[in-house]
């Protein structure tokens, strides 16, 4: 049977989404905040991938970046500090049919939620994780975060941070079952989009660290990198990013890197200047926890009854007596 043309047009209209379909509330981030660039890239991705808003969930913890879900017009879960990962894991285990994204900041992921981060890598559940790394606590007004540079003067480190910054890339690449690790910067929007898109298309725990500016508390931090494209190392490969001619014209410092090569990925991740941008590692072979654990298995009343009766049989005494009357719980 042929479908009437009007019906097809209506369906096309319903099934294909525009940017507006993903735009929620007006962002309350500071102007110049890197979160705005990430939001724009993600909304573009949702439109280009034609994600059904009702089947997409953005999960976050607490912090400036964790406001992200409020600015999407999908389902969202703005959770508690550090716990975005386990919340997202529960969602994915219960509903593997949903597209799950996690937005987390450097405090949320690398400090209070560090234990969950390590284990989330190991679970390798199919979700796209964006680490909004602005190197500072913003919502609580300028305290040093684990990724703050040594010497950074903040309200809790008035004479300068004394510890070396934590490197989220090397940490992630050091955990068993890491399956996708990439890095982007908020000031190169095209690459930011490409990287997040690659992450979304990877089946597994796709970890994208985005170095972003905080105009309020670390205003000059990345100025040198902005003014000198040579301090950005663009990672290219047929299995990774293939930058446009225009991008390549500006970012000439490029290195061909096969994302399957974890040892080189670790070496690149360890070097922080120039900032590597691109896909560091991707291994599509690592199984996802939700698949290993049979997520989405059908649960029927009959299956429950059979399972329960079998368990009761094992512990029943005097099975020959007349059964009890059903009890209402």
């Amino acid at each position: 049977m042929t479908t009437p043309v009007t019906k097809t047009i209506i369906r096309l209209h319903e099934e294909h989404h525009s940017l507006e379909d993903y735009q929620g509330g007006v962002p309350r981030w500071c102007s110049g905040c890197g979160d705005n660039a990430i939001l724009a890239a993600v909304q573009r991705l949702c439109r280009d991938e034609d994600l059904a808003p009702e089947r997409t969930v953005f999960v976050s913890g607490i912090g400036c970046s964790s406001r992200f879900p409020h600015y999407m017009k999908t389902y969202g879960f703005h959770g508690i500090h550090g716990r975005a990962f386990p919340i997202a894991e529960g969602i994915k285990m219960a509903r593997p049919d949903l597209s799950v994204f996690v937005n987390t900041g450097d405090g949320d992921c690398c400090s209070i939620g560090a234990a969950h981060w390590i284990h989330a890598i190991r679970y390798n559940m199919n979700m796209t994780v964006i680490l909004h790394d602005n190197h500072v606590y913003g919502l609580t007004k300028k305290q040093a975060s684990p990724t703050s540079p040594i010497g950074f003067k903040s309200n809790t480190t008035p004479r300068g941070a004394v510890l070396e910054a934590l490197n989220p890339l090397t940490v992630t690449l050091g955990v068993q079952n890491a399956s996708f690790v990439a890095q982007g910067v908020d000031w190169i929007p095209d690459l930011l989009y490409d990287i997040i898109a690659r992450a979304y298309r990877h089946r597994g725990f796709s970890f994208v660290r985005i170095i972003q500016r905080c105009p309020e508390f670390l205003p000059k931090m990345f100025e040198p990198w902005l003014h000198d494209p040579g301090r950005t190392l663009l990672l290219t490969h047929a299995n990774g990013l293939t930058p446009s001619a225009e991008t390549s014209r500006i970012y000439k410092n490029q290195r061909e890197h096969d994302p399957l090569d974890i040892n080189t990925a670790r070496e690149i991740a360890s070097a922080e200047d120039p900032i590597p941008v691109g896909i560091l590692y991707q291994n599509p072979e690592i199984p996802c926890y939700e698949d290993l654990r049979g997520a989405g298995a059908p649960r029927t009343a009959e299956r429950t009854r059979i399972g329960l009766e079998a368990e009761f049989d094992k512990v029943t005494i005097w099975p020959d007596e007349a059964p009890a009357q059903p009890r209402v719980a």
Partner: protein
Amino acid sequence: MTDAALLDRPSKPASDGSGKPATVLTEHIVEVISDSGEGAQRCGQSLGAIAARSGNGIWTVEIIPAEIQPPARSVAGASGIRIRIGQKKVTNGGDETDLVVAFNEQVLLGRVRAGELKRGATILLESMWREHKDPQIAGSYVEAVKSLIDSGFRVIEVPLERECRALMTDARRGKNMFVLGMLCSIYSLDMTLARDQVARIFGKKDEKVIATNVRLLEAGFTWAEANLDFKYAIPAEKQKEPQIVVNGNTAIALGVLASGMDICAMYPITPATSASHYLSDVFERVGGMVHQAEDEIAACAFAIGASYAGRCAVTITSGPGYSLKQEGIGLAVMAEVPLVVVNVQRGGPSTGQPTKVEQGDLLTAVYGSHGDAPKVVLATSDIEDCFYSMITARKIAETFNMVVVVLSDASLATAQAPFPRPQFSEDWLAPPLDQTPVPAGAKPYDWDPVTGIAHRFIPGQPGGMHTLTGLAHDRMSKVAYDPAINEEGLRARSLKLAALQKALKTPAVHGDPEGDLLVIGWGSTQGVIEEAVDRARADGLKVSSLHLRFIQPMPSGIREILRRFRKVMTVESNWSDRREDELIDEDNRRYSALALMLRSRFLVDIDCWSEARGQPIKPGDVVAAMRAKLNEGTPS
């Protein structure tokens, strides 16, 4: 009670027996005590199962040292089990032990010093230590036997090891089945049932193992028939319907299975973990899964995520884990995500007494998490209730979009007693996942003005997109700092408790509806308290009891019940300041948890009697406490 129960008349010889007359008892308490790893618990559980299958009422209490392998022959290392066998249904572990089988004198002394043996109790003691090559051990044994006899115990030395060695090279591992055979002789139990029980417990091993253990069983039986001058019979009054025998934690796991929940997120902790062990074994067969999270916080958050996505989940823990989950529980309260949290209480605070019973977490359960975080709290009163509470909890959680805390404790966790085999009903299960489009204009938090209930939208429902948040929010789930909106949310979340409360039945009074003293309890003490009330009433005291299953919200009608009694007192396994302490007076006394809650709600001078010894409360002690309360002040 067991003293009075010992009827002084011989009955007809037991069927399997030698013709030795058996003394008929209404009930008896027996303990098997050994070093860890000698199988006393398996022996006792088997005895309980055989007695239960004979139709007797039973209650088993495990005696668990805190360490996996405590030093051998140590007073603190006593590992074992108590089995209370009765003609009728048995609801608790009772008072002191009538008969003990001990594998060495040191573990036995542990029980004697804890006051767990009845005066003049019979002790069957492994005799091998008498000839031990280490003179210190032999000396200690001889001295202990002498002092036990001097204290009035009847000590019978039994060559367990020597008898078993004839049948098995590693005699230490076979003693428990030999003892089981002895106990079958002593209690006139059917050896056909006993052989069948041995086959069941070794069912996964080969025939040779079963045959060896049956030989040990029979040897123990024969030895007791030939060498002991006493024998008991506890005639059974068999129940009319099929029964199942499981412990409280298994009942919780079965309840999870029956409730239709399909995700349990947990982190290992004593004494809750065995519920998750059982669930891990069976859950996947029905389409569920147990997630062992990286920590307690993650377990709670994982369960919240699953519930949010439309599959109500449970997280099972004990005290310290419960503390760690507080922030997550607050999130579920604020965002109105259904969640079932089981807390199998243990001694606290901090690491406390991991293997011991205490009802110390009631106030944390009711008032825990910062801010006003109303949640439902129900306490399981017995093993059967552990099963049904899980079904009830899931239903309430999903009907009201609330957190439901189920409190069990270490005594129910390992106690075994038969209860009627549940008859499966599809009503127990969760409704199918709602993926229907949300009507235009519907709001994610459309709080009902009367009940406070809102119908939440589940991911996948077209038109229901919103961002759930732990921040204060309005009906659209938009973050809101408006004073009126904040109060609107607080009001709605609080009203849900009232809405549930209207549906709860007033609990029934055990005993007369009026009298001199009402004892109120909650949780695992129901059997103990009701037995104590029955004993006191038999002695002519005008006492009754009330047991609360729902503590938050508290059902209506309690105020009227309180009015009909001259005095009211709670009985709880937790700390309350002792009036005899010099500094304690009415201005500073800290009351037990339930007493505190009842006093504040009903403005009635409700007293409490509590102990936190890490042991189940004994009915005899409750009777004494009731007498003391009745005699307090001017006699009426």
